[in-house]
């Protein structure tokens, strides 16, 4: 089990969240508290137990490969914060 010492700014960047110094200190303290509680899981020997991803397991859900109705272009674009014609507009990605 890892030491529950979270590098909050690194995690924030992975989360695509920006935190002020005060926020970072606040969350770090709270999350370390929660992680310390979660460490109760380490007290149990779970080595050979099969993991459960879903309580009601269903596997290989397939559908017939045929044309079916989907969202229209207008539906998809209807909530775009910014659009240019029939496209989503975003800040420049490539310099």
């Amino acid at each position, binding site marked *: 089990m890892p030491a529950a010492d979270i590098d909050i700014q690194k995690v924030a960047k992975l989360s695509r969240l920006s935190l002020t110094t005060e926020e970072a200190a606040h969350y770090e303290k*709270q999350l370390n508290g929660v992680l310390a509680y979660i460490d109760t899981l380490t007290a149990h020997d779970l080595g050979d137990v099969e*993991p459960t991803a879903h*309580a009601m397991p269903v596997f290989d859900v397939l559908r017939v490969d045929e044309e079916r109705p989907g969202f229209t272009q207008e539906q998809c674009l209807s909530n775009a914060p910014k659009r240019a014609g029939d496209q989503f507009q975003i800040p*420049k990605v490539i310099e």
Partner: protein
Amino acid sequence: MSLATSTIAQLRQRLTAGEITPRDIVQDIAKAIESRNGELGAYLSFDTETALKEADAADKSLPLGGIPIGIKDNMNVTGQPCTCASKILAENYTAPYDAGAIQKLRQGGALPFGRLNMDEFAMGSSTENSALGITRNPCDASRVPGGSSGGSAAAVAGDIAIAALGSDTGGSIRQPAALCGCVGLKPTYGRVSRFGLVAFASSLDQIGPITKTVEDAALLLNHLCGKDGRDSTSLDVEVPDFTAGIGKDIKGLRVGLPKEYFIDGTHAGVSAAVDAAIKKLESLGAIIEQISLPHTELGVATYYVLAPAEASANLARFDGVRYGHRSSSATDLMEHYLKSRSEGFGPEVKRRILLGTYMLSSGYYDAYYLRAQKARTLIRNDFTEAFSKVDVIISPTSPAPAHKLGELKDNPLAAYLEDVFTIPVNLAGLPGISVPCGDVEVDGVKLPVGLQIIGKPLDEVTVLRAAHAYEQAR
């Protein structure tokens, strides 16, 4: 008397008899909302004009024909907002489609009417994490309604909705129903399509009814379930008539009391109310048996790994590109993501995204997520073993009655532990109901207590039968 105080069953009877019209019902609910929502804060928005149009077009021959149902604000209904009580969706999102459960409701004749407050993205147990307003408990306005479906429960218990839909990831239907004094049912995982329900923790989320009576919960559940090809976890199983057990006795029903759920730390008044309920069930012919769910103590820790981990992945979609809040001050793409998300999400959502991201980050997956999935197996096996001996399992829904607004602010761990009795049911994917079982007097005010009845996978019929027998005898 306002029709808003009625049950679905009562309204159906009067609609069929021609005494009232769907328009009358919508008008009475709109009036009730206008007079009481200022105090309760249960609804975030409601669109009476659309509801009246739909009421006039309603097919009264359908089982729920013309019955308005309040909707938690995390399910898409065409043309309506779907804010998830978050700033990130509040400004400019209008649902372009109906969720699978909403389509089923409409097929049954019901009208979705009104958007109900919740903890932001369903993360919380008090509705205090809503970024859009406070919801108050109809029994005591200084207290929380529970959560995350707090708006749904407050509206139903406060008689400003006939019935409502909630969603339950760790207790978010059952706990607010218990704290407000109404009925809340979480179906078996996979019963109800999650398509169009804004995802929190996909392996746990389930939509279900919040109602005034057990019979109404069965009536509403009849028009929510069924396989939906757009949710690969929705189950391809027969949908029974969930009212089949309503009115049947419970003689010989084997009821399990898990010793791990009757613990110190539960409010004395809650324990007393549940003890009285156990005696009542026994007097109705149920056979009470002590059972053990030995891995109960792992439940909350397991949940607070799985749910934030899944949430951190699900909420990655809020990137300010296709929908939702976009920061106006970003100059490059990274800044666009950072600012849009940081401005849009509230503190509890950020806390869980950070926690989930950490636990899924390189080097930590085996220690947290995989470990929690293994613990989940043990918790599920406990229930499988217990259900070889009993038909249903009962417990308090929540260890305490509704707390005061602000009481658990900034103590996330204490708030997380409120869900100790409801979380294992989600982890095991089982159906569970909360039904009112008396009250406890705190500071001179009577606060409701809920009895949780847990069933075998897909055995909602027995859960509803037991709940109804108890409700009628109480």
